[in-house]
């Protein structure tokens, strides 16, 4: 693989999978509000 391809693969993985990780961490920090 060329350097530019490796770089873009890393960018894609970090942004999208990182976004998923951040989204999961966000909801984990905010537990569900219990319904009455």
């Amino acid at each position, binding site marked *: 693989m060329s350097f530019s*391809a490796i770089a*873009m693969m890393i960018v894609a*993985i970090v942004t999208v999978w990182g*976004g*998923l990780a951040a*989204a999961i961490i966000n*909801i984990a*920090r905010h537990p*569900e*509000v219990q319904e009455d």
Partner: protein
Amino acid sequence: MSAPSPSPAQAAPRADRGAFAGRTAFIFAAIGSAVGLGNIWRFPAVAYENGGGAFILPYLVALLTAGIPLLFLDYAIGHRWRGSAPAAWRRFTRWTEFIGWWQVLICVIIAVYYALILAWAVNYTVFSFDKRWGADPNAFFGEYTRALGGADVTISFDIVPTVLLTMVLVWAAVIVVMALGVHNGIAKSSIIFIPLLIIMFIILVITALTLPGAMAGLDAFFKPNWSALLKPGVWVAAYGQIFFSLSVAFGIMLTYASYLKKKTDLTGSGLVVGFANSSFEILCGIGVFSALGFMAQAQGVAIDEVVTSGIGLAFIAFPAIISEAPAGALIGVLFFGSLVLAGFTSLISIVEVIIAAFQDKFGLSRVPATLGVCLPLAIASVALFSTTMGLPLLDVLDKWVNEYGIVAAALVSTIVVVYIVRGMPTLRDHLNFHGTFPVGYAWLLFVAVIAPLVLGVSLIISTFELLTADTAYSGYPFWFSLVFGWMMAIGLVVIAVVLSVIPWPVGSNLFKNDSDGDPIAPEVVSGAGLTPDPAATTPHELRSS
């Protein structure tokens, strides 16, 4: 005219609609819906053809400025007005009910043909064990489907028994899951199938990465072509991929959100769903291009000669890869098994839009609603698609229902919500009540400007291409595309309008409180947000002053 007043609210009976047990169940069901065939067989080729590694930029922009904002819009409408698409749109503003029926009808069309692809994938999972397609997968697919092609396409009820049998099995599985209900059927099947799908696909990717030529495939996939970013078509492709992949704006996410508890964090959940869908897509790109790299090397050709998408990728290119690769049978079972799982969780979400509407309209309980919808749907699906005209019919319906169903309905619904009813302030305040990701002016801008602009441009481009093409669509007879393409698409709108003026029976869920026994929020007040009320514990209690 407004929907019947919920007062005396407490006196009204509660609707028997079912609910997700919690946020996690909903997130799995929503991911199950979003992750479908498009992730596996559409994204890799779209990304490759539109800038390779550089495509990640327009793709992320599209996710953040259209995909997730439209997802929030769906969530807000379904969650606030707690009903199926027709009921929720009617409660949003009386005259917008037709949008809900339009979405239901779009789902009817997709459901009947989607089951055919699922049946093929089930059969090919079995065929993978002995590589039944032999040396020529293309010819085998033709023999297996006995599909009519080109100018030979006509109305045919010439049954293909293998396909018929598998389609019956697919529909039987759908009926069982749907009859089990929103949580025990839909959510639990996704809670099992989605992790299984991810595990299977990761094993597939690891196996594919070890194939000779895989690195060349990945190089072709991720190598950035920065000049592509200057082409408007690349940006339209990115928005199109995000839009179709996320299952937004045709009733699914609206329906699922209506089953959520009233205190749910909608925006936080939506971010997980949006990024999970894209995360799986990236994984699919890696897996598919590793395999295509192997195929190119094995055949001694350049990667661009083997890149394909859709049915051609799944049922012709992949069998060729499976035949030549070491551990080919394993790759086959994992690949087609993944298609089955991804497709099944999407199919049930599509069918749920229809069942929910039927259930609301007649105030039915789960099992009668399921059978009332699924039996006719299954019979129509099997009768039409297990035939030699199944493939061309699927091809035409898919093309037109995507462009003039999903895209057109999304365009109309965003314009109606933003500019005609002016409901965005209410929806914003609803989302922000329990949302951990606040939405504000940026969300308004994306839904009001970016989404209609991109949807409109996409619709104009597709229409121009269809009308100016030198040859008939896929080489089929003109009347075939006219009837099943144009007339079908226009017919959906006409039938939707007719359905929206048919009165709701007294026993329908429209006149009931929600499943918790609480009254439904009143219609949107044009241009007005919700007035804060310190005593309110759910956004449904807030009113516009």
